[in-house]
């Protein structure tokens, strides 16, 4: 194994980290140099993640023990538990890392032009890189305490970025809300980690899972973990912070912050499937997640229909789309104990949920960027004040159409493929769920039709007659995400078989996850 492949799990975290430490210094050499440096480092990150992904898809779970004599020596010689910190990269981690590094690259390129009017750009790029570090760290780690540390990196950089435009009061308030919510949920997570440590004297996910007895303490820890991570990803009982935080977030960071929410969702999947898995009462937890999903779907979309602020409308769809992912995963979890049901529809439901996560990372990110492009050129997010931008901003209009058709589940776009998988699987589980999901889908389409009509069609309003298309870097940023969306739409079966099912199987195969660290499997 060559050195790059061997060290790729840690390089995927340390490359953006190193770049973040250098950015304040290199910022003194001028904005142009700094932009090139930031984008180069994110391209390097993308390359490393692709190398890592190829290896994981070829050879299965990758283990990287930090500070040991060899990367695969998880347990010290003649001992029985892991002592050092271990990175464990499986299909799910790689899938999320691929999506989030692509989104981070697109967001950074988009920011080059969109952040130009602002001051404090060096700090902005440092925070953007650290947000990427937080996402990569959570996805690639195999250690619960390490997950907490990177969750805090993600939260603090996210809050600071949300409050970046300090001249607006809602930006500051959104950042404040986010940091309060994240620090409380991170503390709940830490409390759960303490409960595991007190019982099993371990911090590694696989080691805890191996020793898990599902005692009353583990049930308390499970409740704390689910509460913390559902809050962090903005599902319904605690969705109230999402619109306030994401709406004022500056241009290029909105899709990255959205990807960070999806990262927390992936961490939740990791906890319920790999950490607890077969050892817990599956039906109860599965139904809990399904109910959270259905509520998120429905409440998110009804709130979205009432909005006139274009970005706030799209952010409410964030909540609603997260409902689909939770629904898919919840159905998969509820039947996990029954191998026949898993083969019949459980695996497909979970795969649909994960596919929807990836699709959303791209098309939802694209939509958030188009909303920011309208704000950048028109100076307003109010739908009632827009009109006829389809002629002046052709590229933005086309990108918006791609994103809107995909999110509403119109065939042949990728949103349709993933929703179809969720519909089919949930129909076999409980037809009521499918009906609700279909209704929500129709409402989503209605809501985006409204946006399209008021923002893009009709004659251009007189005050916006001389509005031009957005600068090149913003078009490139949106173009990356649009290309990814279209590519997935064109080859859905290849994508599902190539990357989604490996991630699904990694989640379903709890014994494999444990034996990769503990050996003897």
């Amino acid at each position, binding site marked *: 194994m060559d050195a790059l492949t061997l060290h790729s799990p840690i390089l995927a975290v340390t490359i953006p*980290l190193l770049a973040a430490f250098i950015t304040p210094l290199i910022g003194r050499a001028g904005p142009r140099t700094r932009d090139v440096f930031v984008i180069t480092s994110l391209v390097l990150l993308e390359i490393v993640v692709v190398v890592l992904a190829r290896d994981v898809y070829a050879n299965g779970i990758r283990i990287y023990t930090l500070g040991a004599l060899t990367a695969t020596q998880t347990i010290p010689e003649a*001992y029985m538990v892991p002592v*050092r*910190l271990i990175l464990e990269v499986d299909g799910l981690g790689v899938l999320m890392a691929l999506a989030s590094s692509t989104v981070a690259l697109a967001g950074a390129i988009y920011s080059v032009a969109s952040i130009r009017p602002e001051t404090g750009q060096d700090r902005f790029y440092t925070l953007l890189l*650290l947000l990427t570090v937080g996402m990569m760290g959570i996805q690639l780690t195999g250690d619960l305490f390490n997950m907490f*540390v990177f969750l805090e990196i993600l939260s603090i950089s996210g809050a600071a970025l949300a409050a970046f435009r300090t001249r607006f009061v809602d930006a500051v308030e959104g950042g404040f809300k986010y940091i309060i919510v994240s620090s409380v949920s991170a503390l709940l997570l830490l409390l759960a980690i303490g409960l595991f440590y007190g*019982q*099993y004297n371990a911090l590694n996910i696989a080691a805890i899972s191996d020793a898990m007895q599902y005692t*009353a303490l583990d049930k308390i820890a499970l*409740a704390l973990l689910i509460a913390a991570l559902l809050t962090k990803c903005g599902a319904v009982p605690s969705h109230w912070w999402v619109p306030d935080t994401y709406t004022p977030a500056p241009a290029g960071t909105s899709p990255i912050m959205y990807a960070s929410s999806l990262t927390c969702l992936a961490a939740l999947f990791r906890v319920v499937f790999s950490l607890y898995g077969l050892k817990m009462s599956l039906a109860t937890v599965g139904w809990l997640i399904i109910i959270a999903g259905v509520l998120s779907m429905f409440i998110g979309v009804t709130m979205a229909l009432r909005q006139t602020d274009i970005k706030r409308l799209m952010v409410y769809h964030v909540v609603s789309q997260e409902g689909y992912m939770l629904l898919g995963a919840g159905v998969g979890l509820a039947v996990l104990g029954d191998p026949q049901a898993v083969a019949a529809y459980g695996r497909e439901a979970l795969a649909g949920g994960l596919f929807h996560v990836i699709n959303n990372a791209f098309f939802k990110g694209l939509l958030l960027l188009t909303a920011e492009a309208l704000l950048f050129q028109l100076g307003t997010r109010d739908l009632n004040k827009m009109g006829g931008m389809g002629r002046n901003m052709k590229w933005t209009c086309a990108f918006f159409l791609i994103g809107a058709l995909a999110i509403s589940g119109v065939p042949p776009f990728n949103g349709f493929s993933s929703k179809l998988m969720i519909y089919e699987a949930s129909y076999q589980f409980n037809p009521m769920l499918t009906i609700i999901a279909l209704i929500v889908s129709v409402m989503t389409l209605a809501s985006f039709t409204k946006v399209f009509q008021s923002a893009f069609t009709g004659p251009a309003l007189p005050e916006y007659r001389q509005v031009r298309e957005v600068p090149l870097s913003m078009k490139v940023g949106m173009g990356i995400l649009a290309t990814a969306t279209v590519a997935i739409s064109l080859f859905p079966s290849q994508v599902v078989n190539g990357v989604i099912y490996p991630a699904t199987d990694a989640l379903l195969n709890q014994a494999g996850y444990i034996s990769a660290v503990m050996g003897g499997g």
Partner: protein
Amino acid sequence: MIRKIGISVSFIVMAIMMFSFAVLLHPFGEPPSVMDDYIIENTQQETGTNNAVSAVVFDYRGYDTLGEATVLFLTATAVIMLFRDRKKEATE
């Protein structure tokens, strides 16, 4: 009203959970220690460090500490960023 009920219910649930873990945990002063015994035993040979806490912080779990140092760096960056405009006014 609904808000108040929700808050009280979640508070009561949390309080019950907190006090029940205090009852259920191992007796204070007798924790399981399979991982930590290894560290105490081997810190001197493996890391050359007399202080086991330093060995954990910088060697066994050094990656966490890298994250921790990053958090401080990040906060310094964030706080400077938040107060950037005022500073400009002052100097100009």
